[in-house]
Every structure is written in structure tokens, then in C-alpha cells.
């Protein structure tokens, strides 16, 4: 993994182009998602939200190499904070998101301050311990705040002080809004998309900054970094908090698109999922985690919806016993068994392609380049590093 997270000096012009292309791709998502059957606002929102989550996770894991197994805690905290804003103050999404990010940041400072005293597997266990503690407490003692197993939902009797002040119709549960614009369906997706573009921009800036370079130095050799006179902890803590804020942003956006929050968002398998997304896409690359998140959510959507009758149709052209066999075998991997596919995919990626999809892409482009330019240029193309 270390091999592909190199510092890539880039020109501002090139970064601007990357941002432009990225924004264009994200904003036109409803158009290009139609042919692949992903053009539901619900799914597109999930792409964007988990994209933000993975980008944030990548800032920590990809740049510094600290493997956190408790990032879902920040996601859950962000969700709860956002729903509380909806309940108490206003349905305006901006305030909810801001508060969600803020609360997640406070949590991240507290947890990071303690957990970052250790590195490696101890750090992983510490973050896991904190996340599990939050999860357990959310289910037991903190039920007045979290509403336990039912989850925190909106109710018609919520005060919503600010909304009431401006004379909004009380009663019922209005959807989250942005200064009067109701955030449902595509409006909610575009809200998430703008957030995603902002998040990506910040991530790009961090990647290109001296701060990002220092984080990479910490990843490659923290001891040596210390010898050169840097106190590494403030840097790691800063990026840990930033990463936690990304998770909080993702969590509060979840609450914006669907105003409820439950403790199951904090369970450790949810933390594992974001690690998987980041690794799958390529840890330490700019767009890799986003690709990983989109692929997993897309595959989850496709695979878990397939049922036996559809499989029978697909394999229908084969002789009957073969059809039965193929349907029997492949039905293990779809629908309920989707997690099996996920686990196998996860293993395959870690075993064969530790750099994730981005490394795969790079290998393929490298191969094509070599073919085209003939054997003489082999050495040359081996050293070229595409930027992300």
C-alpha cells in the first residue's frame, strides 16, 4: 500500500481541472447513472454520503497509515446531533449539518487525544473499544438521548423553536429543508452532491499541502520524522479530527436524507465497511475511496436485489440440470448471501491488489502504454506516476 501513496506535486491548473471534471461528473450523476440502473435519488444519495465517509477515512488511513476500527462512532454521533437539531430548533439542513460536524469533531478530539497515544494494532483496538462503548451506551444508559433500539425519530410534538418563531405551520413532521426548499428526492441528492464536492476539494487541498506531506512522512517513518524535530502527534490528531468531521458530515447527511438515527450505525461492522471501501478503491489515492464506496453501494443494491427467478432467466438457455446447478451455485452469492460476495471480494482485493482499484487501473494503463510505445520505453513508463 505504501508504494502508491507518494507525494505528487501537481500544478494549481491541473488541480482546477481535476476539480472541474469531478464536479461535472458528480452533478451529472442522474444522467450517467440511468444506463447502469442506479438513477434513484436514494441510491445516489448513498453514493455521495458514503463517498464523503470514505474520503474522510482515507485522509486518516491513506495518509498516515493509522488503521481506525471505530470510525462509525463519529457517523452515528453526527446523525444523532443532526436529528436533535431537527427536533429542537429547525428543519433547516445547514444548521443540522453544521452541528453534526461540530459534535463529531468534539468527539474526535476526545477519542483521538487518548487513542493516538498508541499506534498500530493498539490504536485499532483503542478506537474499536471507544466505538463499541458508544454503541453499547447508546443502547443502554443514553436512551433518553438516543431513544435506544427504536432509534431517534421526528415527532409532531417536537418544539422546533426557530421554525415556530418564523411561523412555520406546526404539527406533522415536515421534511428537512434548505431555506424553504424541501430536501427530498433529487433536491436532497444535490445537497449531498455539493457537500461531496466541497469535501473532495478539502481533501485535495490537504493532499497537496505541506501538512499532507508531513502526514505521508509520518506514515513512512514516524521515528525518523521525530528525529528531524517534528512533534508528530498534533499532526495526526488534526487529521484524525478532520477525518472524524467527515464522518460526522456523512452521518448528518444521512439524517438529512432520512431524518432518523439509530445506534446500529455505530456498530463495528459499519466501521469495517468504510475500511473496506477505502481499501477497495485504493487507500491513499484521491478518488479511490469514492470509487470504492460507490462500487460497494452499487453492488449491494444490485446483488442483494437479485432473486432465484431472475437467475433462472439468465441461465435459462442452458440445459436444465446445468441451469439448476448454476442457479443453485450463484444464488449463494446474491440476495441474502450478498455479504459472502463482499467478504470474498474483500479478501481478493487485499491478497492480489493491495492498492485497490486505483492500482488496478494504473497497472492496466501502464500495460497499454508499454504496448504502444514498444519495449524501449519500458523503464520510462515504470517511473511515471499518474497523480491519483
Amino acid at each position, binding site marked *: 500500500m505504501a508504494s502508491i501513496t507518494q507525494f505528487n506535486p501537481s500544478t494549481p491548473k491541473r488541480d482546477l481541472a481535476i476539480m472541474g471534471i469531478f464536479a461535472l461528473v458528480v452533478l451529472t450523476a442522474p444522467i450517467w447513472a440511468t444506463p447502469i440502473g442506479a438513477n434513484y435519488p436514494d441510491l445516489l444519495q448513498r453514493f455521495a454520503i458514503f463517498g464523503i465517509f470514505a474520503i474522510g477515512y482515507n485522509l486518516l488511513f491513506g495518509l498516515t497509515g493509522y488503521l481506525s476500527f471505530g470510525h462509525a462512532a463519529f457517523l452515528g454521533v453526527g446523525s444523532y446531533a443532526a436529528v436533535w437539531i431537527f427536533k429542537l430548533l429547525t428543519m433547516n439542513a445547514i444548521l443540522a449539518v453544521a452541528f453534526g460536524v461540530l459534535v463529531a469533531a468534539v468527539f474526535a478530539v476526545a477519542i483521538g487525544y487518548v487513542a493516538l497515544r498508541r499506534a498500530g*494494532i493498539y490504536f485499532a483496538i483503542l478506537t474499536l473499544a471507544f466505538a463499541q462503548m458508544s454503541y453499547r451506551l447508546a443502547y443502554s444508559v443514553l436512551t433518553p438521548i438516543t431513544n435506544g433500539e427504536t432509534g431517534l425519530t421526528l415527532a409532531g410534538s417536537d418544539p422546533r423553536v426557530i421554525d415556530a418563531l418564523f411561523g412555520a405551520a406546526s404539527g406533522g413532521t415536515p421534511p428537512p429543508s434548505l431555506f424553504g426548499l424541501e430536501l427530498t428526492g433529487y433536491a436532497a441528492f444535490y445537497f449531498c452532491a455539493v457537500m461531496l464536492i466541497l469535501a473532495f476539494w478539502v481533501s485535495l487541498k490537504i493532499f497537496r499541502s505541506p501538512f499532507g506531506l508531513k502526514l505521508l512522512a509520518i506514515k513512512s517513518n514516524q521515528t525518523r520524522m521525530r528525529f528531524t524535530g517534528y512533534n508528530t502527534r498534533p499532526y495526526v490528531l488534526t487529521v484524525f479530527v478532520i477525518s472524524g468531521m467527515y464522518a460526522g458530515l456523512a452521518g448528518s447527511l444521512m439524517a438529512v436524507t432520512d431524518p432518523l438515527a439509530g445506534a446500529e450505525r455505530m456498530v463495528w461492522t459499519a466501521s469495517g465497511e468504510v475500511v473496506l471501501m477505502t481499501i477497495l478503491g485504493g487507500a491513499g489515492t484521491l478518488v479511490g475511496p469514492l470509487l470504492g464506496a460507490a462500487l460497494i453501494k452499487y453492488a449491494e443494491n444490485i446483488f442483494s436485489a437479485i432473486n432465484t427467478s431472475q437467475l433462472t432467466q439468465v441461465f435459462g438457455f442452458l440445459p436444465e440440470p446445468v441451469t439448476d446447478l448454476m442457479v443453485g451455485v450463484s444464488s449463494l452469492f446474491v440476495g441474502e448471501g450478498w455479504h*459472502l460476495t463482499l467478504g470474498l471480494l474483500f*479478501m481478493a482485493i487485499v491478497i492480489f491488489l493491495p492498492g485497490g482499484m486505483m492500482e488496478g487501473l494504473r497497472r492496466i494503463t501502464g500495460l497499454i502504454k508499454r504496448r504502444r510505445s514498444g519495449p524501449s520505453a519500458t523503464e520510462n513508463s515504470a517511473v511515471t506516476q499518474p497523480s491519483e
Partner: protein
Amino acid sequence: MDTLLLQLLNGLDKGGAYALIALGLTLVFGTLGVVNFAHGALFMLGAFVAVSVNALLTISQKVRDESITAFEAYTTKPYLEIWLGDFGEQIIEWSVPISALVAIPVMLLVGLVMERGLIQYFYKRTHAEQILVTFGLAIVLGEIIKVFFGANPISQSAPPALSGAAPLGAMLGLNENLTYPWWRLVYLLCSFLIVCSVFAFLKLTTYGMVVRAGMADREMVGLLGINIQRRFTVVFGIAAIVAGLAGCLYTPILPPDYNMGMNFLVLSFVVVVVGGMGSLGGAVSAGFLLGILQSLASMSLVKDIAPGIDQVIIYLIAVVILLTRPRGLMGRKGVMEV
């Protein structure tokens, strides 16, 4: 006093399971240097050995139910009972102890296949990658079990001779009404026995001595002309057996489901870290210690003082230990210190 004793025993029971899993984890880590997140899955597989042995023993035939004469009624009767009569019935009743015997070769095989098939390629990779690939393996194993056995817990019963309540109070000369399930006592005994035999194997046999030497300095042992790799692979198999036995014998206490490995794994990892990475004694003692503390924290007296403490105590202790004693309770110097 009585509740205290009961909770102590409960804690020892739970601690026994933690200790056995943690022992295997730290054994694998100490020998192969691999952080195995799939170790909980081995515990789960052991439990499902018990389930499948039970299912095999009770393969049944439909027979005429003689007790109902009014109409033709059918009931199922296991082949074993048909063939062997009362003896067959007893075999079925003792299916959990029998499956423990079956679990030994099965888990050894599973462990060896896992080590040769996957783990050996990850010695040189980073701990993060080891964690990730074994995490994936754990998901896959869990899902495979789910395909065959479904998602619901499948309860297993202890042999009738051991399933009643032991008059513990009378035995110890305390309150007459104090009783405790026999099987839990058996489990406790078994976990002590397993721990002792693993330690005896490592400390008293020549094979174990070489393994310990290899843990201390692998290269040197290799230079002396010993195939240390093969021995470490066997150690992985032993760790798998220990985890499998723990799971197999735990089935009458907790009905196994495909997810149980994950739940125990997280706790066992905390146990290993608290005990000290690479320290066998540390893992065992931390396992029992945390089990007991968890049980004590769930007493209503404690819960009144600190609400919710029973949910978080293990993690809380882990945090405190890691911050005050970076190496864990009994960690060896130089092992994964950061």
C-alpha cells in the same frame, strides 16, 4: 455473598471462553507474527462442529408411532436408536462431548488448511493487511455457515447427567439453596484443562521447547537446522483446536449462530491486548480477569452506583490499561511496542 459467588462463577465461565480464544490468538501472534481476525470464526466453527455432529447422529427414519392407536401416526426415530437401542439413545444424549472429540481432528485440519492456504502469504505483509484479509475471511466463513445452518441460533443440550443444577451451596457448606448448572462447572473445568495442557505442551515437551525457542529467535532456530516453519504451522493448528474446543463446549451455554465468532473475537482481542501481545500467561489471566469483572459489573448493586458500567467495563479497562501500561499486563518487552 451468594450472588457474589454466582457472579464469580459466571465470570469464570465467560472468562474461560475469552481465555481460550485469546490464548490461541496470542499463540499465533507470538509464533507467526500474524494478527488473526478470523480466530473468532474458528470458535464459531467449533460450535458448529457440535451442531453438525448432533445433526448427523440424529438422522432419523419415519416410524409408526405405537403409542397412538386411534389412527396411523408417525414419528421420527434416529437410526442410532433403531440399531443400537438404549446405547444409541445415550450416544445422542452425549453428542456435545462426542463432538468435542470430533472437533479436535476437524479443527486441526481447518487450522492447517487456513494457515497453508492463506495465512502463510501474509507473514511479511503489514499488520493492517493481515487484519483486513482475516477480517474478510471471517465474514466469508460466517456467511458459509449461514448458508448451511441459517441465521437463527441452534440450541444444543448438555448430556442429561450433566444438565441439572449442582447443589453448590450444600457442597461448600453454604446456603442450601445455592445451585449452579453442572455443565457450566464442566466447562470451567475443561477450559482449565485445555489451558494447562497447552502450557504443558509448550513447557514440558521438546517440541514445545523448540517452538518457544522459535518465538524468541526464529532465525537462530532455523540456522540450527530445524524446520521451524512447520512447527509454527502446527502451532496454528493447535490454536485452531483450542478455539474450536472452546466453541464446541460452549454450545449448551450459548446457542451458536453464525455471528457469534465476531462478538467473541472483539472481546478476545481486547483481552489479548490487555494481557499483553505475545504473552500466553497474560492472555489467560486477562481472559479470566475480564470475564469476572464483566460479571461483577452486571450485579445490580454495581449498576446502581454506575449505570451502564456492565456494557462498557471491558472496553473501559482496555483503555485504561493501554494508556497506563502500553505493553499490557504481562507483555514482553519489545513486542509491538509503539
